[in-house]
């Protein structure tokens, strides 16, 4: 899921960085004081999740958990993922500093989309598990597509790259679907205020 340095072309890097900077600013501005610790904890979860390797499929893939972050955090998933990716780049040499913007956008944009798509479903207990599964599945799927797009804009053909990337992440999509499903239903039962269910005006 992390694109290494030295692959992407300059326009892709710059536009990815600009989009991430804007979205991060929005995320930080909307960040509610009471939510800061929750965001940090999920950022830490994201940071650690990348170490959990899924030994299935043709490539070497790991958990991403951007769906979970998206569903719970909304706009705040941009700063959370940005910080987590920065630390991953420094500590684990995953991705890199130059590609940080693109990588953040690739993972956080689908998360944000899932937040807006699935919020109405999450409100209703009956659809909650389905919404959780879709959140985990779709966010990894879309992140794979964005990653393939970033690679394609830099050199190779989109369709071929997309096929490889999506196929490689298929096991992760399914696993994350279940993880997100269980986490969301659990949170809704135990601590519904984390999901801000029933709140008309979401502050993030």
């Amino acid at each position: 899921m992390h694109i290494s340095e030295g692959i992407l072309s300059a326009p892709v890097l710059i536009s990815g960085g600009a989009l991430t900077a804007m979205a991060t600013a929005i995320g930080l501005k909307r960040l509610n004081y009471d939510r800061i610790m929750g965001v940090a904890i999920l950022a830490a979860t994201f940071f650690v999740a990348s170490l959990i390797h899924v030994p299935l499929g043709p490539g070497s893939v790991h958990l991403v958990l951007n769906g979970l972050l998206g569903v719970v955090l909304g706009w705040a998933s941009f700063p959370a993922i940005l910080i987590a990716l920065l630390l991953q780049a420094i500590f684990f040499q995953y991705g890199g500093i130059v590609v940080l913007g693109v990588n953040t956008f690739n993972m956080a944009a689908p998360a944000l989309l899932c937040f807006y798509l699935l919020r109405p479903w999450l409100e209703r207990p009956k659809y909650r598990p389905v919404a959780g599964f879709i959140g985990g599945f779709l966010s990894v799927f879309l992140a794979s597509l964005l990653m393939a797009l970033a690679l394609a804009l830099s050199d190779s053909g989109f369709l071929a790259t997309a096929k490889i990337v999506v196929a490689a992440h298929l096991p992760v999509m399914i696993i994350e679907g279940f993880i997100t499903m269980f986490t969301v239903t659990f949170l809704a039962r135990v601590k519904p205020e984390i999901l801000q269910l029933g709140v008309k005006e979401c502050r993030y």
Partner: protein
Amino acid sequence: MSILKKCITLCLLASVFCFLPSVSQAHKVRIFAYAEGNTIIGETAFSGGRAPKGSEIIVQDAASARTLLTSRTDDQGEFRFPIPEEARHGHLDLRIIINVGEGHRGEWLLEAAEYLGDGESESESTSDQLTEVAPASMTTKPISTNEELIRRVVEEAMDKKLSPIKRLLAQSQDKGPSLQDILGGIGYILGLAGIIAYIKSTKGEKK
């Protein structure tokens, strides 16, 4: 209190993940190459130890970034190719790049001195000088060829003996993320959250 509890469970979870050896596999491509006689042998692996099969290997001149040849890894993630003539003549430093696709890429710089061996390039130049001087003193010639032969044999033997050590060195250079890294990262995140909370709280006071 509940936040504190969550933090503790998270840290516990994190440490559990680190202690499961098969679980904490990573996502980076490692590449490493050395010369053995006339061929360059290389090994690649994902940080977790799985081999990238059939991945593209690109050999470039490090100075000009011109591609000299391309190859592919075998099922063990290894590759080998003869030293390109061009590189041998031009004493080019080789940049060997593995491109796995899916945005994963690793590279290794193999310097000319490393694969040519200082001895060989020197002996070439000395033998050139010798051939120029040769008509004057024929007696030195057999000695120099003997010397060259010994040098080559020693070098080959050294290459063979040293290659496992080189391999070991390259592997030890690339350790997976350690517990310190992981806990450090979590600490950074919580610390940053504290800073943001502080900034937000001072702003709130002004209002």
